[in-house]
């Protein structure tokens, strides 16, 4: 495959994974947890690096997942102590992120791990780190990781589809039916962390938030069916990612920034034109329901 094809494939994988997982972020009303987790994942990656002293995909993945779940745990804990939920998030993620930045400045000092890279991602470098896998052959490491993560996400979403649905819609009922709501919550936060870590190289810590939230929010304006919302959100993710790449190539600027920008365009179109919940349809038939 060509250099450009690898980049587009990687971008599309980011869009697809984030789009699918993002649907439940929206429905569980935890969109800002994406922001919190994407920042604290940095700390996990830094600590993994300090321990192993190498930039390896596996160590980073494990560090990132642990950091993400730890964040979710801390936020939940503070909230259980009656700290406002969003304040708890704000305290936890800024503090852990700050510790991450300090660690990088004081004890890492390695070119592979600068903050800028982690924040912005650098998708153009991805095809330079090729690994060889059986059957598939040579493939960029980040792309392979994304494929794996996508498979994991799809597995969990499909296998526990009805459990995700009920724990998102009515956790109290789910608990009374014997479904482990808390465990599902942390499993979900784990999945968000995995997706974030895998997308890091490509889009960085902050733009991944756009990829996670915006396609799902756009899809939410088009449909009232959960399964269709998942498909739609995944497609929006892919479309934004690919469109973002071409916008960036066209005006010669940051690819990850353009991808985030493109998700904004998709949302804008949905917000205005969606037949169900768009601005225009609201104008045409205002408040038909109740």
């Amino acid at each position, binding site marked *: 495959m060509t250099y450009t094809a690898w980049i587009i494939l990687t971008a599309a994988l980011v869009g697809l994974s984030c789009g699918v997982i993002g649907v439940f972020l929206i429905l569980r009303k935890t969109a800002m947890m994406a922001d919190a987790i994407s920042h604290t994942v940095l700390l996990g990656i830094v600590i993994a690096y300090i321990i192993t002293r190498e930039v390896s995909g596996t160590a980073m993945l494990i560090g990132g997942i642990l950091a993400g779940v730890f964040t979710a745990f801390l936020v939940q804990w503070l909230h259980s102590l009656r700290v406002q939920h969003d304040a708890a998030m704000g305290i936890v993620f800024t503090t852990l992120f700050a510790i991450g930045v300090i660690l990088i400045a004081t004890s890492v000092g390695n070119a592979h791990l600068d903050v800028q890279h982690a924040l912005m991602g650098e998708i153009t470098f991805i095809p330079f780190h090729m690994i060889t896998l059986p059957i598939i052959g040579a493939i960029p490491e980040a792309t392979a990781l994304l494929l794996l993560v996508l498979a994991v996400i799809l597995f969990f979403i499909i296998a526990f589809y009805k459990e995700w*649905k*009920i724990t998102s*819609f009515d956790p109290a009922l789910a608990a009374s039916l014997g479904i482990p709501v808390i465990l599902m919550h942390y499993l979900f936060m784990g999945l968000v962390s995995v997706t974030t870590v895998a997308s890091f190289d490509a889009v960085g810590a902050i733009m991944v938030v756009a990829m996670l939230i915006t396609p799902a929010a756009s899809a939410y304006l088009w449909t009232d069916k959960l399964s269709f919302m998942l498909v739609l959100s995944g497609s929006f993710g892919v479309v934004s990612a690919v469109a973002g790449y071409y916008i960036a190539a066209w005006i010669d600027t940051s690819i990850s920034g353009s991808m985030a920008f493109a998700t904004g365009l998709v949302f804008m179109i949905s917000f205005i034109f969606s037949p169900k919940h768009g601005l225009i349809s609201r104008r045409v038939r205002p408040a038909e329901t109740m």
Partner: protein
Amino acid sequence: MATPILQVENLSASYRKNTVLHDINFEVNAGSLTGIVGPNGAGKSTLLKTILNLHPSLTGSVKFFGLPFIKAKKRIGYVPQRGSVDWDFPTDALDVVTMGLYGQIGWLRRPSRLHKERAYEALDKMGMADYANRQISQLSGGQQQRVFLARALVQDADFYFMDEPLAGVDAATERAIMTILKELKAIGKTVMVVHHDLQTVEDYFDHVLLLNRTVIKHGRTEQIFTRENIANTYGGNMRWMGEEKRHAVHSIE
């Protein structure tokens, strides 16, 4: 008849510094239909939640069928207040009712045609069959409440707890819900309902639990739903309207 299937002993619960419930003791017999009545802030919802382990208790014990809650879970159905979920969730009425069966369906399996049929039957029973495929945000308040009740029916529990199912619903829904509650009672199920409208208590429930932070009185409606007991429950903040049965109570919030 007199086998208690719910025994609550010395239960207390608090929100932060305030003890909301204290010294709660009562027993409920199988096949009864009980209204939980009391002023605002009396702890009615908290009582349900504490009994069902959704709110931590400070002291005391709760036994269902002689067992702790965890072991009796499957035989208990809970209908939360309508406002406790987001009705903008992308799903339809039939799907919400099917959720009541998720516990029985088990992990890694999808709802079968049979499950869907049972859910449809429950909807039909609540007069909601025509709305099975309607998105839930497009249902009226009363219709949403009926969907919730259908979901409880499909659980096929032995013991139901309902938190204000009649609050803010239309007259038709109120009638439909009460018919179902009486049917449940007729086939030997036990139901406890948080209720806010004193005028209908005598028509709807055979047992009443008068609550104001603790149990003021509990027993058969005709015996304990007296002017004096109600006055005790609501304190001085009430006045009677009309004679005998026709009364309304105004409590200061």
